[in-house]
């Protein structure tokens, strides 16, 4: 079963698609090769004809370029008109003593130069983390579960899609998402999020963002294949001494049954604005209904009991 939580091999079959439906597809976003070019953001806006929203919608005051004023980030986060968001994280970290390259030429120390890790233990350097965030297309998608109209559906490709002709803008999906992906478009009233370019998938094309990515940081394909590729990449990075590399959303045993779009990160998830241990809220729904039923029975019992005894 595991319809509400836990590992689920084929969410499309669970949603009722017959045998022979297309394989589940997804994204593997390898942030270790992301260069922060935002081609994915632009390609997504172009293909999906999304309006500019700017960071104003997300609470920060943007300048004329829409920059957040904190980094090169000018979209702030995922939203109703931003289905790909590139996060820019600037960190001061302990300096690493990387081996100098011998150029075979006469050289001298820079005056006052500090050799990291040797002269001063507390020497630091700056590192940039860039990551292109997207809807996770969860195995157990809370947005889909709580949608009262059936506007949000599981597609034959295993992705999660909003049918905009059905959505009545109730907004329930928005706080249900543990990642803060889906949002209501101002002036429209309906909820919007990444479609994984549903209109391209049917034609055998890859989504616009993955097609535009110049470094293959965004990889698209059947989810099983992507998971193998991600495991290999992680092992390679660990061999090369990048111990901080970790996969996020890859594990089918996690709180959302694994993500359809998962990531290779170089720091803790919350650094990139991702929840460290997300759980689909509907995992607890059976217990919620039981508690609500108990409380409703208590109301019925109390009201009935209030009429017991003689009248004054």
């Amino acid at each position, binding site marked *: 079963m595991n319809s509400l939580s836990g590992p689920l091999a084929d969410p499309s079959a669970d949603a009722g698609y017959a045998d022979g439906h297309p394989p589940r597809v997804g994204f593997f976003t390898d942030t270790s090769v992301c260069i922060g070019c935002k081609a994915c953001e632009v390609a997504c806006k172009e293909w999906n004809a999304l309006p500019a929203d700017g960071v104003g919608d997300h609470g920060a005051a943007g300048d004329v370029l829409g920059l957040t004023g904190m980094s090169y980030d000018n979209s702030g986060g995922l939203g109703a008109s931003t289905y790909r968001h590139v996060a820019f994280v600037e960190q001061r970290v302990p300096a690493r003593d990387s081996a100098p390259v011998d150029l075979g030429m006469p050289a001298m120390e820079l005056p006052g130069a500090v050799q990291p890790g040797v002269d001063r233990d507390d020497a630091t350097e700056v590192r940039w983390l860039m990551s292109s965030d997207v809807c996770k297309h969860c195995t157990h998608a*809370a947005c889909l579960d709580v949608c009262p109209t059936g506007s949000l559906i599981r597609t034959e490709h295993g992705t999660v899609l909003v049918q905009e002709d059905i959505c009545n803008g109730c907004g329930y999906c928005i*706080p249900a998402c543990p990642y803060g992906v889906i949002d209501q478009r101002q002036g429209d009233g309906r909820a919007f999020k990444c479609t994984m370019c549903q209109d391209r998938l049917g034609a055998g094309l890859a989504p616009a963002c993955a097609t535009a990515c110049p470094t293959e940081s965004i990889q698209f394909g059947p989810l099983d294949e992507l998971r193998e590729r991600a495991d290999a990449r992680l092992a390679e990075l660990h061999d090369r001494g990048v111990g901080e590399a970790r996969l996020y959303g890859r594990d089918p045993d996690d709180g959302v049954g694994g993500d359809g779009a998962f990531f290779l990160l170089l720091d803790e998830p919350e650094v990139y604005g991702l929840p460290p241990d997300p759980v689909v809220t509907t995992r607890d729904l059976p217990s*919620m209904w039981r508690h609500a039923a108990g409380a409703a029975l208590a109301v019925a019992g109390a009201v009935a009991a209030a009429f017991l005894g003689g009248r004054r």
Partner: protein
Amino acid sequence: MSAPEHRTAAGTPRTRRRGKGRGERLMVPEAEFTSYYGRPIIKPPVWKVPDVPAYLYLGGLAGVSAPLAALADLTGRPGLRRVGRVAAAGGATLSVGFLVHDLGRPERFLHMLRVLKVTSPLSVGSWILAPFGALSGATAVAEVLGVTPRLARASGLAAGALGPALTTYTAVLVADTAVPAWHEGFRELPFVFAGSAMASGGGAGLLARGDVTPARRVAVAGAVLELAATSVLERRIGFAAKAYRSGRAGAVLTGARVGTVVGALGALASGFVRGRPGRVLGAAAGLLLNAASAATRYGIFEAGMASARDPEYTVRPQRERLEARRAEDHPAGSDR
């Protein structure tokens, strides 16, 4: 100490203790909290005030008024029956009105009844609210026009049977989200909402003429249940309890609690005062209980909003859960 207005370099763990400077060092083992420039992780609900708090309050008022009216009808208490029927229909109608008004596309409100999904509390709720509204509305029309008392009794009983579900499904509605202050309280919130609904529905009954003893009992029992469940909630939900104690939510909930206590004591006292003064005291207590119930819903709504806006509410409990699991998997000092 709240995060959104506090900008730190992203990814720089920041100590949450005072007097430790800026906490720029990476090797801070205890009580650290990181976020992406203090931005929220989950999206705060787009639900509007007063629409959604009013929808929660009115649903509770209507859900208790209906069974009160139905039993008052059966036990020959016409005053209580009349007030209960009008409150049930009025509450349900206004509640639906607020719900529709809150939609991004109000003209599509009937899409709510396109499907019935048990995984969506809003879908289940719509299927409770729609027949409840129709039944309680018909009952109230018959009451006011003074026609078809037998049909009114039948429809009133049916509405009364649906009423208790109407009071508690809204708790599941808010708890079935990623909003920390709401989700963490999913065990207690149905009882808070049930108590708050009984306080308001019973309080409304105190406005009636004639014997209002059952309404008084319901109101007092509801106030006690609400206060007890709220206190359990705040003790059991861990870090998220802060959202209920601080800021606007904390102030509103404190006020609501005072109103509930005073209202319940007034309702209790009105039972010992004979004649007109007793009725006036009861009515005042009933109105106060309704104001307190509405404030409780608004306070809970605000607590959820505050916990959604501040990423610490999302990150901290999840991080602790993760660390505890890692400690279990890799005891003492082993690698991640």
